């Protein structure tokens, strides 16, 4: 008798292979296009743009990483090791910046820090009328915006690590006469290193592949350059060369991070876990911690959100809230729903096979699907575009192309919830159903699907919301006249029509909040 697994495996296998192909083919084609390019194009790019772009990208990623470590680790430390009134509130508020897409934060900061903007006027009150502050359109301005937007990654992971850390290591250190500060430095921080590294890895990947903020802040990175090449030139050779460089850079970085992480693994082999005790703060401590927390939350979420609300309520913004605007909402929702549905359908065979039949082939397919991780939006768009022009130009300018790009781009996000959902069901359950006389199909319908439903829903919602915020691929591939909320924000913001961009931006932020809640709730409970 063939088992359920065997019966399902081969067709699913084909589906999984097809998905891997769907993702790898465009990528492969871009690589071929880049490698077969005229060497003159390569040497010209090396002589002109590439050194600057590489330098800009790497230094930005480095500076943002450093700043996010400072912000993320210190805040995580404060909320896990100290007790002060309102702690739980701050604990949750610190993740809010993740609900703000980088292009929204960047556009708010072009106003806040801009020439003659409120921050500068405030500074001039104190430092004299000629004083200038940091321009948002500079290296440090971009660093600040990106760091404020991404530090919650480091915060979240460090916080979970701190909460699950066995406090006895620290106690041993204290008993041996090491001071509090040195214990932090020599015991706690090294123990947290893997988590901090994982958080920083997320931040760096985010920075390297970001388009929204760097385009609005006019900071030249590889990702931005790919976009500019695609829109400014009539052939895509230079864009593919830069794309390949970008993917190589991201991969190099991922490999290094894995390698470091493998070298520093910590296990607790014996002993009992005890949660750390929180130090109760004096009123002075409470006041200074609260001030610090308020400052961080205000600049990363509070003030921008407040500005978005006031701008949305301004008469200029109210005037654009017509049927056209509702059309943009509808377009966003349609695209996002299509991409999320397609993503779940495509991701299911992959995740199912990888958990039920972990052969080299199925694992390989799954790994291929995660390639979207290192593919910034413009590159995913370019990959889909050049392949489409080659084999099916009929699809150019249709929403289908855009949906394919989304699936490639966001499948990893979906798989991350699909995979554990499937792994958590023991195959025994399905087998039991079969021995009790249920058919293959009935087993799926009555046992497997209900069990993975939650993972399914979460994957769908995550992909829906990610797609809704997506900017560069949408800009490059959208059908005629098919503007989405994200596009409107970017178009208005890039001409500094702050009020006109606000309603769409506010809506995106509000809709992102539930996704954030979903993402975080797992880690939150686990910790």
């Amino acid at each position, binding site marked *: 008798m063939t088992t359920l697994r065997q019966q399902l495996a*081969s067709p699913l296998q084909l589906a999984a292979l097809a998905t891997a192909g769907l993702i790898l083919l465009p990528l492969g084609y871009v690589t071929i296009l880049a490698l077969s390019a005229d060497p003159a194009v390569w040497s*010209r790019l090396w002589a002109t743009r590439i050194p600057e772009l590489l330098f800009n990208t790497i230094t930005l990623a480095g500076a943002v990483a450093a700043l996010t470590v400072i912000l993320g680790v210190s805040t995580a430390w404060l909320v896990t090791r100290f007790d002060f009134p309102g702690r739980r509130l701050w604990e949750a508020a610190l993740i809010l910046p993740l609900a703000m897409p980088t292009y929204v934060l960047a556009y708010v900061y072009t106003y806040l820090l801009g020439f003659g903007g409120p921050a500068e006027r405030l500074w001039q009150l104190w430092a004299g009328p000629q004083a200038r502050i940091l*321009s948002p359109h500079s290296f440090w301005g971009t660093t600040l915006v990106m760091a404020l937007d991404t530090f919650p990654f480091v915060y979240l992971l460090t916080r979970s690590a701190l909460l699950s850390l066995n406090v006895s290591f620290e106690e041993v250190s204290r008993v041996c006469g090491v001071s509090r500060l040195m214990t932090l430095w020599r015991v706690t921080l090294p123990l947290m290193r893997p988590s901090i590294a994982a958080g920083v890895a997320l931040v760096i990947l985010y920075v390297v592949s970001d388009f929204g903020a760097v385009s609005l802040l006019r900071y030249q990175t590889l990702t931005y350059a790919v976009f500019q090449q695609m829109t400014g*030139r009539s052939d895509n050779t230079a864009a593919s060369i830069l794309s390949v460089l970008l993917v190589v850079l991201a991969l190099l970085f991922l490999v290094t991070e894995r390698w470091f992480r493998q070298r520093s693994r910590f296990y607790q082999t014996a002993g009992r876990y005890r949660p750390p005790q929180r130090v109760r703060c004096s009123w002075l401590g409470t006041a200074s911690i609260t001030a610090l927390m308020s400052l961080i939350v205000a600049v990363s979420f509070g003030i921008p959100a407040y500005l978005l609300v006031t701008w949305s309520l301004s008469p200029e913004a109210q005037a654009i809230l017509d049927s056209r605007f509702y059309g943009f909402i509808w377009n966003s929702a349609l695209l996002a729903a299509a991409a999320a*549905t397609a993503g779940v*359908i495509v991701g299911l065979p992959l995740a199912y096979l990888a958990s039920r039949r972990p052969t080299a082939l199925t694992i390989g397919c799954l790994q291929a699907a995660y390639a979207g991780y290192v593919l910034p939006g413009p590159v995913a768009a370019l990959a889909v575009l050049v392949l489409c022009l080659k084999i099916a*130009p009929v699809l150019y*300018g249709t929403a289908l192309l855009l949906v394919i790009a989304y699936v490639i781009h966001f499948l990893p996000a979906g798989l991350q919830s699909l995979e554990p959902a499937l792994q958590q069901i023991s195959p025994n359950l399905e087998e039991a159903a079969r021995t009790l006389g249920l058919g293959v199909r009935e087993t799926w319908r009555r046992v497997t699907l209900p069990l993975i439903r939650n993972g399914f829903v979460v994957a769908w919602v995550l992909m829906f919301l990610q797609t809704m915020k997506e900017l560069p691929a949408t800009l490059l591939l959208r059908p005629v006249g098919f503007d989405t909320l994200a596009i409107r924000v970017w178009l208005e913001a*890039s001409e*500094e029509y702050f009020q006109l961009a606000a309603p769409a931006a506010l809506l995106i932020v509000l809709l992102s909040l539930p996704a954030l809640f979903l993402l975080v709730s797992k880690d939150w409970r686990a910790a």
Partner: protein
Amino acid sequence: MTIYLDQLCPLAAQIHRRLMPGLLTLLLVLGSILAPLASSFAADKLVVYSGRAERLIKPVFDAFTAKTGIQVDLLSSGTTELVNRLKAEGDRTPADLLLTNDAGSLELARGAGLLRPLNMREIERAIPPQFRAADNSWVGISGRFWIIVYNTTMVKPDQLSSLLDLAQPQWKDKIAIPNSGSEYLQAGVSVIRASHGDERTKKFLEGLRDNAGSQVYQKSSQIVDAVAKGQVALGIVNHYYVYRHLATQPTAPLAVLMPDQKDGAMGAIMNVTGIGITKSSTHVENAKLLIEFLIAQAGQKMFADLDKEYPLHPEVKANPALVDRKSFRAALVPLTRLAELREPTLTLIEQVGLR
């Protein structure tokens, strides 16, 4: 392969049973996405690919719709992006017309066989030949000049007279320029190359790059804004952005310097906004109506008033706020040459490493 062949039938059944509901949903969703596109093929509707900022062109089209009842669907995007898109879409393009802010791009589109030659008496009567393609497959509808805008509190107009002066070291960190992807920068550089040669142009671009530093903008309105606020002293933009800014903020310390007017200088760099009907348009009659509307005196007047551009119809007067068209001269490089000049210009721009 043989492994899978005998499994194809069960596969089909599997797909049918398990994936069909999902696929149907997907199709439904996709269908509703594509539905609005299909409706663009309806009779009284024109699809225009527009390389101009939406707010600069939409009111004119609205007036056209009000007059004729013909709807106009706008896809606003970058000019080069749109030409690329037209090329890729070929015969299947939904676009009836291509409108861009650069004659070079239109001429390139004509060369690629994307536009339809027109034989219309109205065009020949209204628009002088130097502002349209030889076969009328594109027609200029308004003219603009690439000028220097300066902050009157920071610069005296006698401090410079030519675009090339902006490369002098004295303007370090004092100028703002458009990014190298903008078609009118490319067109401007092409004209300078044609007038001064590659060596001189390269020196100019290097100076411009060093002087501008990070003040490289995506949008001309931002350049004017930066000059008005005093963030920089000078900028290079199309003239109408200055007047549009002054129309909303009359007290802004802005002025226009018409460059290269001295004896023997090359003259101001001109470009046009132009429009052409796509080769595969199925609404040619309506599209012709739109072109007629745009080049007729009333339409030209709208451009002049709304956009502060120079009308191309010889009998329509420019907005009185603008520098009198008769008081300065334009560079002698024909607009149609912008197409052939484009590629070497891009190479030069890339060599210099403009952003």
